């Protein structure tokens, strides 16, 4: 960086560098490419294994001798992967809808409504950000088990299983994380109050202003919340493991884990085929929503 010749008063072209190829630059690319390969190789290895035969995997090799596409269909038959897939999708969609409804309304109220103790309420949600789910594992299970009037429970929450083994239990308790309320609030805060004022003059009610005027303007936040929540729901494991006992409601990750329970009997090509299918949707989602996802992540990090 010895060649900082122009002090660059204008902000834009502050670092127009000479395009000479320097050895440091090449080294940088080499290191980064090796790093990127280290990140991708396990996934490549997964896909390659998914095409191999049982015999082939007895010895280490990179490439499969032929592309056995039927591994994928056969893997789908050895475990009810299709059902797991559908369950995961259902949980992801349900949880995302629930989160959007609860977190946008709360975020808007925190950002724009003149509530007494509003600052304290905001701090309350920020404080909750710090509570990891693992900490409240045991009591959360008990609360879900004693939801009144569900699963054979009486009005006091005794006698039955409450929300255990139910879609309610899978979706509601882990939805609407305080993180998303906070995120929505950050976006609403930045909208100008004049917009709401103008709508009020036009005779729109307070709820109408929230729903029809302000919320459409924070679309980037809504997308961020959706992507985050879908990823979280799709990848969840411990909670479904705790509260489901029947195969009919189990999500994909649980299916995979059960599949790999006994190392001695694992059929690796099938397991890798199943894992590839389980992984693919989230990678596709990420590649499409990449820019937004990254921005949201970075914003949470910096403002948090």
């Amino acid at each position, binding site marked *: 960086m010895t060649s900082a010749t122009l002090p660059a008063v204008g902000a834009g072209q502050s670092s127009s560098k000479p395009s000479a190829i320097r050895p440091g630059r090449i080294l940088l690319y080499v290191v980064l490419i090796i790093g990127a390969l280290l990140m991708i190789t396990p996934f490549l290895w*997964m896909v390659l294994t998914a095409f191999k035969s049982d015999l082939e995997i007895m010895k280490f090799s990179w490439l499969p001798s032929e592309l056995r596409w039927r591994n994928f269909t056969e893997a789908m038959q050895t475990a009810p992967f299709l059902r797991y897939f559908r369950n995961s999708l259902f949980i992801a969609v349900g949880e995302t809808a629930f989160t959007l409804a609860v977190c946008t309304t709360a975020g808007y109220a925190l950002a724009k409504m003149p509530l007494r103790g509003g600052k304290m309420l905001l701090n309350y949600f920020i404080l909750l950000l710090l509570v990891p789910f693992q900490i409240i594992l045991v009591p959360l299970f008990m*609360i879900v088990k004693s939801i009144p009037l569900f699963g054979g429970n009486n009005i006091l929450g005794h006698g039955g299983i409450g929300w255990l083994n139910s879609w309610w239990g899978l979706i509601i308790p882990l939805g609407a994380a305080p993180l998303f309320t906070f995120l929505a609030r950050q976006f609403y805060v930045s909208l100008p109050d004049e917009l709401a004022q103008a709508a009020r003059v036009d005779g729109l009610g307070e*709820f109408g202003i929230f729903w029809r005027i302000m919320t459409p303007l924070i679309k980037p936040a809504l997308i961020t919340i959706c992507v985050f929540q879908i990823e979280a729901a799709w*990848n969840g494991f411990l909670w479904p493991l705790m509260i489901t006992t029947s195969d009919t409601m189990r999500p994909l990750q649980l299916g995979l884990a059960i599949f790999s329970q006994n190392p001695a009997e694992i059929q690796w090509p099938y397991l890798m085929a199943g894992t590839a299918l389980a992984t693919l949707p989230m990678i596709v989602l990420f590649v499409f929503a*990449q820019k937004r996802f990254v921005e949201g992540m970075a914003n949470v*990090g910096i403002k948090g």
Partner: protein
Amino acid sequence: MSTTLERPALGTPRKVAPAKDRGTLLRSQVRTGWTLLTPALLHSGIFIVIPVIAVLVLSLTDYSFGDTWSWVGFGNYSTLFRDVDFLASLWHTVLYAIVVIPISMAISLAVAIGLNQKIKGIGFFRTAFYIPTVTATVAIATIWLWIYNPGSGLANGFLSLFGVAPNRWLADPATALPSLMVVGIWQGLGTKIIIYLAALQGVSRDLLESADLDGASRWQKFANVTWPALGPVQFFVLITSIVGTFQVFDLVYVMTRGGPGSETRVLVLDIYQNAFQDLKLGYASAETVIMMIVIALFIGVGRLLQRADTND
């Protein structure tokens, strides 16, 4: 929803002249505000606040799903400190955190600095480093289980190219925990890189340029401009890493179940087994409280480190 909101409150005239009467407007805003906020308050109260309080109370009981239970005071805690499984879990979790956090923070910062040099193909690199983060830990664990396979896994296959003798990785007590740490570091890079990258882009251009004018070396610029500017972000990354590493479960559950022996037993696994296999909910709650205290201690040390760093 909107019908309940538009219903006129007691004493207010039916048709409010828009935006005239400030008192009425304020009242209707307050009413709407609380209505909008209530679901989130109820949800967080029931599913976060009550459980946090409950875990403290439960830890003083011998509750185990049955109808009868009694107070045991600090009995659970004194039992815990003689429980070899718990002590092993605590030790492994702390060890895991101490190794994984600094290494992954250092690598992430280095990669982020690299990516911040106006690199070509930034989208590719960002995706590559981030994919492990968006992939389910169970899937990651499954893939690495296969990579670590002693017979024909990638790890031994790759190392044999360099003449390294095959290793039993997860099955060998000496290498089991380090093998898990490698996966933990590998998976956690993406988030940290993205956050560091965003922070690096926020480092003041002016300061860097005036450092250039003063003839500062690359290293001097990093130490005196970039590093101090990263302070708050470092702290955020540190806190989330601490909370994250203490939560490690999926990885261990799929890859080793705490084995061989109890060489990779970690806190959440032990809590899970005590609570949901042995049904000792009171005991598991006491364990959770200890985990909270250890996390708080780690965060406290992190704050001290940060303060020492910024006071220079």
